[in-house]
Every structure is written in C-alpha cells, then in structure tokens.
C-alpha cells in the first residue's frame, strides 16, 4: 500500500515537473487541448481540515483525477478566493466566508440539477431545518442565508432556494467548550464558566475575531450581563458591551492564551496550560488519543456551529467544469461522507454515508449510543474504547441545540477594530 502511493507520488511529481516545463505558466489556463490529452488535475484550495491524502488517493482511484491540495490557514482562504481566484479549481470555503467571497464575483453558481444527491442534502442547507422538521438556529450566518445565488453569474444571495447554489455543503459541526475533567473540580455546564474566577489564568478562546466574538458573546450572555437581539449580527452597543466584559476579564488575568489554529488548541489543552477553552471536535479526540482526559462539554446555552462546502470559481469551464461537478457528486456519494463522519464532523448527505459505515460506527457517531467495539479514526488509529459514548450525544442532540452560527456581521469593520483593541488591552 505504502509502496504504491510512493511510486504514485513520484510519477505525479515527474508529471507536474514536465507539465510545468513544457507549458510554463499557461499550464492551468483554459487550454482545452491540454486537458483533452492529459489526465485532470483539480486544485483544491482550503484549510487543512478536509485535505486528507486518503481522500485524494480515493479520488484518483475512482475518478482518475489528480487532486492537488493548496492548504491554507483560514485567513488566507478568504484572501486567496477574493484576490487570486485563478489559483484554484475548487474552493473549500466556510459558509461565513461566502459573505466576503460572493460579492467579488469569483464564484459561479452551482447548477443544482447537475448535483446527483441534491435532494438528499440535509435540509439545514436547503430549507433551514433539521431532517426531523425542527427549525435550525438562525442567529449568525445560518447556511441557508448564503446558500443560493439569484443567477448562475451573480454577486447576490437569493432569499429563497434557487437553482444556483453558492457552494455544495460538505461538512458542518456544532462546537462547544473543551475541558480537562481530571483537573477541574466542579462540573461545567454553562458558557459563563469560561469567565469564572476558578479558571483564572487557565482559560483560552480563539483569536479569529469572527469566531472568537461568538464565543465571547455566548459567555457574556450566559453571565446575564448582556442581552443580544441577534448575537450573529450585533449592534455597535452590543459589541462594545461584549468587548468591555472580555477586556475586564483579560486584564484580570483570566486568559492564559488565545489560539489561532487547531493544533495550538490541542497543545494548550494537552500540556495543561489551559483547562477550559473553545475547541473543535477532532481536537478533543486528538487530546484524548494522547492519553490526556478531555471532554467536549455540552452546555445549556447550546452550541456554536459552522459549515463548509465546495465552491466553483468563475473561471472554470469546459472539461474542467465537468470534472469539478463530477468530483462534487463523488464527494457526496458516501465514501467521503463516512470518512468525515468518523472524523467527528457531520456530512451533508447522511444517507449515502451510512452505507459506508458499520452499524456500530453509525450508532456511536450519529445516534449517540455506546460503542460496541473500539472506535477507529479514518486514518486507522484507535480513538475510543468499546463502551464509550460521544460527548454531546446524537446528531439531533448536538445539531438540534445550535444557538448560533459563525458569522460576518454588518458591523464587521467596527468589530475587528474593537477586537484589535481588546488584544491590545
């Protein structure tokens, strides 16, 4: 297995070098003859969150496509998408980023008629409700708000579902606080505890303003000091109040650190620098894998959710566009979905993913039932022993209790300025 992939890599490298030499900078431009002659290479830009080699290998095996990842930190994803759309063929974007990217006109609407599993996409994205019919939280940028375009080439979001989607949803999840149950005395059950004196110097939040402000808002609201009309779209006064509470806590030494990426959060938690912090699901799994106790603590105020999808840049056409559609359809056809579900995320088309998971896996990840046998990560490491139950429970218990989605506010400019002030305080 490893031998094979090594050889493949060498072939790819040689091919890429050759292509680069022969065709120079025009290699990726629309030169149909080249694509007709050679195999398809899809360049996917996005964060490292979904860029698994296993996935690229599988795509090569089943579609014959070469997947070339451009891994970026989340800040750079938006910048690339807006300023350099020609540098990728597919964009792995989060939904809140679309508010920034779509007005640039760099994405083309995705024709839902060409999406094979469109009807089976969880209605969170197409109707704003859960599969059981309950409505989904609307605070923040709930996916439906930015899911559709008014036309194929449009810079405007459609208020009601149209034939053109901005991105095809791939993964989403409900985030909460991670805690070290072995080192904290009283059980944690509220976002307010992020600001509790007992965690002085041992708490952390993320320093990505648009996400950090949501955690701050969840905590501030839980303390009862602020009431929001819509946390996902605060007024100037609400931003001021939130930042004031956070600044006060910061000055009192509440926070050990602010983290920027996934891995930092793992390190902070595993090393014991921090006992309570905002965290992402696979990060909790990772800490546990290292033999350190860590819980993805459900809280009474609910979760902060996010979603991501695949977008097609405006420059794509002809065979490359067909390839992009083919890849997206394959993405939703189940194998990838199962892979992502096992990663602790949720996939957009649940029915197809179920076919690629064992009943036990499905029960553990989706139904919140105790595992009958050991739970193994998509890359083959054991992550839970038999008998373990997923933190937060089933899909409905978690996604059903989303309080707010990651967002870009109308007062974004003001918020970022205030956030900078908070950091400087």
């Amino acid at each position, binding site marked *: 297995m490893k031998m094979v992939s090594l050889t493949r*890599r060498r072939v790819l490298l040689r091919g890429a070098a050759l292509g680069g030499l022969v065709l120079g*900078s025009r290699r990726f431009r629309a030169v149909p003859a080249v694509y007709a002659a050679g195999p398809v290479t899809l360049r996917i830009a996005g964060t490292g969150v979904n860029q698994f080699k296993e996935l690229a290998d599988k795509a090569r095996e089943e579609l014959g496509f070469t997947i070339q990842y451009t891994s970026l930190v989340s800040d*750079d994803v938006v910048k690339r998408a807006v300023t350099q759309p020609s540098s990728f063929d597919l964009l792995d974007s989060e939904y809140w980023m679309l508010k920034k990217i779509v007005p640039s006109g760099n994405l083309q609407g995705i024709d839902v008629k060409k999406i094979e599993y469109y009807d089976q996409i969880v209605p969170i994205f197409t109707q704003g409700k859960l599969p059981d019919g309950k409505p989904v939280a609307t605070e923040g940028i709930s996916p439906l708000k930015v899911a559709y375009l008014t036309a194929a080439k449009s810079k405007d979001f459609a208020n009601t579902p149209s034939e053109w989607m901005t991105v095809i949803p791939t993964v989403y999840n409900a985030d909460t606080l991670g805690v070290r149950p072995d080192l904290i005395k009283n059980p944690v059950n509220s976002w307010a505890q992020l600001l509790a004196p007992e965690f002085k110097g041992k708490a952390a939040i993320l320093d990505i303003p648009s996400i950090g402000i949501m955690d701050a808002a969840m905590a501030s609201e839980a303390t009862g000091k602020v009431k929001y009309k819509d946390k996902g779209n605060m007024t100037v006064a609400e931003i001021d109040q939130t930042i004031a509470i956070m600044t006060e806590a910061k000055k009192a030494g509440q926070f050990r650190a602010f983290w920027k990426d996934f891995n930092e959060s793992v390190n902070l938690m595993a090393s014991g620098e921090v006992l309570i912090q905002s965290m992402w699901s696979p990060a909790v799994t990772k800490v546990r894998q*290292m033999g350190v106790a860590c819980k993805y603590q459900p809280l009474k105020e609910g979760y902060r959710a996010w979603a991501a999808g695949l977008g097609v840049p405006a420059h794509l056409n002809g065979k490359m566009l067909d390839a992009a559609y083919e890849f997206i359809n394959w993405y939703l056809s189940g194998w990838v979905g199962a892979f992502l579900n096992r990663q602790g995320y949720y996939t957009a088309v649940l029915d197809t993913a179920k076919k690629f998971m064992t009943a036990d896996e499905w029960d553990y990840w989706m139904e919140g039932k105790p595992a009958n046998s050991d739970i193994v990560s998509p890359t083959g490491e054991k992550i839970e022993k038999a008998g373990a139950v997923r933190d937060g429970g089933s899909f409905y218990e978690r996604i059903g209790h989303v309080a707010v989605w990651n967002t870009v506010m109308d007062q974004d400019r003001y918020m970022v300025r205030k956030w900078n002030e908070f950091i400087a305080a």
Partner: protein
Amino acid sequence: MGERRRPPIFWALALLLALFIAFMYGPILTIVVLAFQGPNGGLVFPMNGVSLHWFAELFEPQSIGDIRGSFDRSAALGLAVTICTVVFSFLAGLGFRRRFRGASLLLYLAIASLVMPSIVVSLGIGALFELLGIERHWYSSALGAHLTWTLPFGLLIMFAVFNRFDPAYEEAARDQGASGCQTIRHVVVPIVLPSLVGVALFGFTLSYDEIARTSQSVGALNTLPLELQAMQTNATTPVIYALGAATTGLSLAVIGTCLAAVLWARRRRARYGSDAGRAV
C-alpha cells in the same frame, strides 16, 4: 599571530558565547526530545512512550500535508534565492562604492522593502500577478517575493563588507594590467569570499523560513513553512519534530565533517609544507 596567552576576557566572552549557543538550541532541545514520542504522543509533554515511530513516518506520505514535496520546493527556492541574493547584492555593493544617480533612492527602496510588513508585500505581488493574468508559482512570483526580503539584507551586509575596503588592492591589480573583470575575479572576490558565504547563509536561511511574503505569492503549491502552517489547521503529529531533529542532526553532521576535513587538510599541509590552496 602567535599563541599568546588567553586574557581573562577571552574566557568571559567564551562563556557568553557558550550560553548564547545554549539559548539558541533551547527549542531544538525540546524538539529533539519530543521527536522520540511514542506513536500516540503529541507535540507537548507529557511523553507518551518512547519510539522512533515519527522518524519512520517522516519518509511516508502524510495523511495531511505534503512534507516531502514542499521540502523539495523550499530547498530549490532557497537555493535560487541564495544565488540571486549573492550575485545581485555583490554587484550592487560594488556599484554603491562609486557615486551614481539614484543611489540614495535605491538604498531607501531596499530599506523600505525590509520595513514594509511582509503580508502587505505579499498581497501586492499576488494582486499584481492576478491583475496581469500571470499564473503565480513558487519559482516566479514567490522567488521575487523572497528576493524583496533577502536582497536588503544582502545589500546592507555588502556595505559592512566593503566598509573601508582599501581601493589600493584594486589599483595595484590594475597597474599590473588586469582588466576590470579580472580585478573583481582575482582580487575583490577572494578578499570578500568569506563574507559572501555569510550573505549566502543569510539568503538561504531567510528564504527557507519565510512565511508571510510567500503566503499570497506562491500559487497552488506550498513551500515547506506554509505547508507546515496549514498542517496546523488539523491534528499535527510529532513528525514535524522528527523533521526538525533530522534537519539539525544532518546539518551538524555535515558541518562536523567539513570541519574535520579542513583540520585534517591543514595538519597535512603543515606537515608537508604544501602550498596547495594558497594560490591567488
């Protein structure tokens, strides 16, 4: 100079240098220790077993991130940047020894390039290429971006090198009938050669480690630091520590070997009185 007795200040400063080197290797120490984490270990203490697992992983394709490919690109880019930096700044350093119009402007341009926050430069280059419809690559736009970073260093170090460089050497050569090029090749270059090695070292180190200027100018394929940075958005394993430990170990071994070779050659030369290597 003969073997004079070392004054006390020698030992005081030797101690200072030793402490400084220990400080420089501080993070390397944790990197090396943690590179031997067990298969389930993370990037921080506690150690979770001891193994060579991550060194073996280093040679396997990673689930997330292409360390091998990006390493190759970074090494090639670093090499290209090094060569350009040495040649361009050496030439410019020579140029600056005479007055020419625009010299001040060029100097301040170089300093501005050093001062300007790298992300701004990066964004500007990325946007410029997009505007002109030219594809960005590590060997085109990113090479340029790196040079805006390394050349100011190269140029200013050349200033320190040519600082009070006695023109008498060149005049003597010219009096002997050497052409301009010959003078540079046989007189100037040999004198400043050790410093040129210094510039090369600077160029490579700065380029190999560059993130901000590369981020928006690199195109679809990442350099090593960018790939490592992007890997941070997912679970990163001690394989990156294994990479650091291996890099350090290899560099130390290479330098150790070179040093041994030089010392050996010198002893041999001293013994046989050969004049090899002393020619102009």
